[in-house]
């Protein structure tokens, strides 16, 4: 009886010390995330007017949401554009960073130099820098996007197909620049793969090609999911994102206001969660298929 009681107090003490370590975070989460999130949701159901004494809230039910979805001609178009661009970017980032990681996992001369180059964008990518570079046309795939033949080809395509391809051509380097951290994640997963598996496969007569599809790729399935999620989130939070800029501008606009911007923020969040869900399900199913 006594030892059990002791064990219980020990457990309790451990838990209390644990809470002690994360206490700061819990306070911060309530103050800087949970409370503002609830507050923003409350704003989204109101017409918010900022006055000299403070803010005035007039309850409008779901009017802000219906306005964004059915009346505002810009929001839906921007949101669809964002969804398409993200869906186009994710596979490119994943494939590209996987290829680079596979390269960097080899041993060759000047490896350090190339590693430095491929990781450079992580350090310098910021909203204003990207805006200046895009304005000068420095982020399009060199020489391809400006060819008359390409423009001619694009004009023949239906709009639904043309927009993603045009986006791909004009922001090709930009998409690649979002691959830095993903390369690292792939690299660290590659280094966790046991080398002896490759030796065993080679002894059994497997070619490098077969080893890639049967050993390397399946061992990267977790990294695929982590990277896809990371890519979607960084693209969605990037300050040059058109939806974010629209929401930001509407916050201060006369006809918009805080209530309307909050409603759009939540709709945008929903689209992002939807994208995360789709990509996650797709990759998780893929990983399951590879395992069997």
């Amino acid at each position, binding site marked *: 009886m006594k030892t059990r009681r002791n064990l219980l107090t020990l457990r309790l003490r451990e838990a209390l010390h644990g809470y002690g370590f994360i206490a700061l975070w819990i306070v*911060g989460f309530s103050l800087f995330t949970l409370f503002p999130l609830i507050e923003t949701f409350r704003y989204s159901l109101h017409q918010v007017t900022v006055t000299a004494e403070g803010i005035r809230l007039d309850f409008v039910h779901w009017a802000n949401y219906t306005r964004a979805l059915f009346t505002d001609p810009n929001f839906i178009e921007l949101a669809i554009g964002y969804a398409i661009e993200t869906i186009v970017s994710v596979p490119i980032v994943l494939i590209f960073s996987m290829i680079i990681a596979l390269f960097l996992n080899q041993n060759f001369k000047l490896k350090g130099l190339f590693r430095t180059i491929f990781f*450079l964008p992580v350090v310098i*990518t910021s909203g204003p820098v990207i805006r200046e570079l895009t304005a000068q046309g420095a982020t399009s795939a060199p020489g391809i996007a400006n060819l008359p033949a390409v423009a001619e080809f694009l004009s023949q395509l239906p709009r639904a197909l043309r927009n993603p391809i045009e986006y791909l051509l004009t922001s090709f380097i930009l998409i690649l620049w979002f691959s830095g951290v993903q390369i690292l994640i792939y690299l660290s997963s590659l280094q966790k793969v046991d080398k002896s598996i490759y030796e065993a496969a080679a002894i059994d007569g497997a070619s490098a090609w077969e080893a890639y599809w049967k050993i390397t790729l399946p061992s990267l399935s977790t990294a695929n999911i982590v990277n896809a999620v990371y890519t979607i989130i960084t693209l969605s939070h990037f300050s040059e994102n058109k939806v974010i800029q629209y929401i930001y501008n509407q916050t201060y606009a006369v006809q918009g206001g805080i209530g309307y911007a909050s409603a759009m923020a*939540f709709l945008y969040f929903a689209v992002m969660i939807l994208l995360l869900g789709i990509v996650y399900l797709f990759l998780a199913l893929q990983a399951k298929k590879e395992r069997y």
Partner: protein
Amino acid sequence: MQSLPRLNLDWWKSLLFGSRTRSGLVFTVLLYTLLIAIGFVYLYPLLFMFVTSLKSPSDLLNPMVQWVPTELYTGNYEKAYRVLDYPHTLMASILVSVIPSLLQTFVASLVGYGLARYRFWGKNLILLLILATFIIPPQNTIIPQMLAYKEQGLLGSPWALILPALLGQGYRSAIFILIFYQSFLSLPKVLEEAARLDGASDLRIYLTIAVPSALPAFIVSFIFSVVWYWNETFLTSIFLEGGVTTLPMQLSRFVQAYENLYPPGTVNIFDRLNEAVKMSGTFLNIAPLLVMYFLLQRWFVESVERTGITGE
């Protein structure tokens, strides 16, 4: 005599296509070609920026001048330096990226340590919420924060960035917490248990044993934190507007600032704002980061591979 050409063929074959022990020439050439091609595409915007920033106004107008300017022209940098108000904005940028980063790294390590070493109820919920703070877009929480800061008179002061960092809600804090969680999980517990038996307090164990052994995670987190704070403009433009002006903030209103210094009506045509000056400004903006990257790049890449940033 007859065996010689065949031997030669084998030698050629292994040279070109590789053998069991070394990769062949074809593979090597292919590898380098691809790497150089991709590397060029990667660096293209930077090269473009750098070359353009050195062009004099007459070079800009000359269609013959593409990649090699006719002279080393530094006038653009002089103008951009003044427009950016470089010494001030540079100091501001350093201030509002280094201080929150230090606090954020320390708090993230505390939280990561607590999660990795203690058993308590609700741990999975906390981990889930930490992930949520990474996913929730900033614009879903920023307006009430801004209004609260305004009420407290903190809008425009560095405290607006320091407070969240101090409470583990800084920019991308979730990633750093997960990095520390991972690296503390992978460290052996033995030393800490021995110290506990000797009667050391929890905080002391953390400070004297856990922190030194997780030093790579600290360095990586701090560096990434500085870089991300430096490059962040959405939060800074809302929280610091009217107070501190960072380099990226000044860059985003470059045109306006330029026309204040060099009013378009009064200066001669060569002093009008052109893309060369803009590119100089952009380059001055990333130059401190480039210097830091080349000094510390060993830490960026190598130790990230070892800290388990994957967060699986």
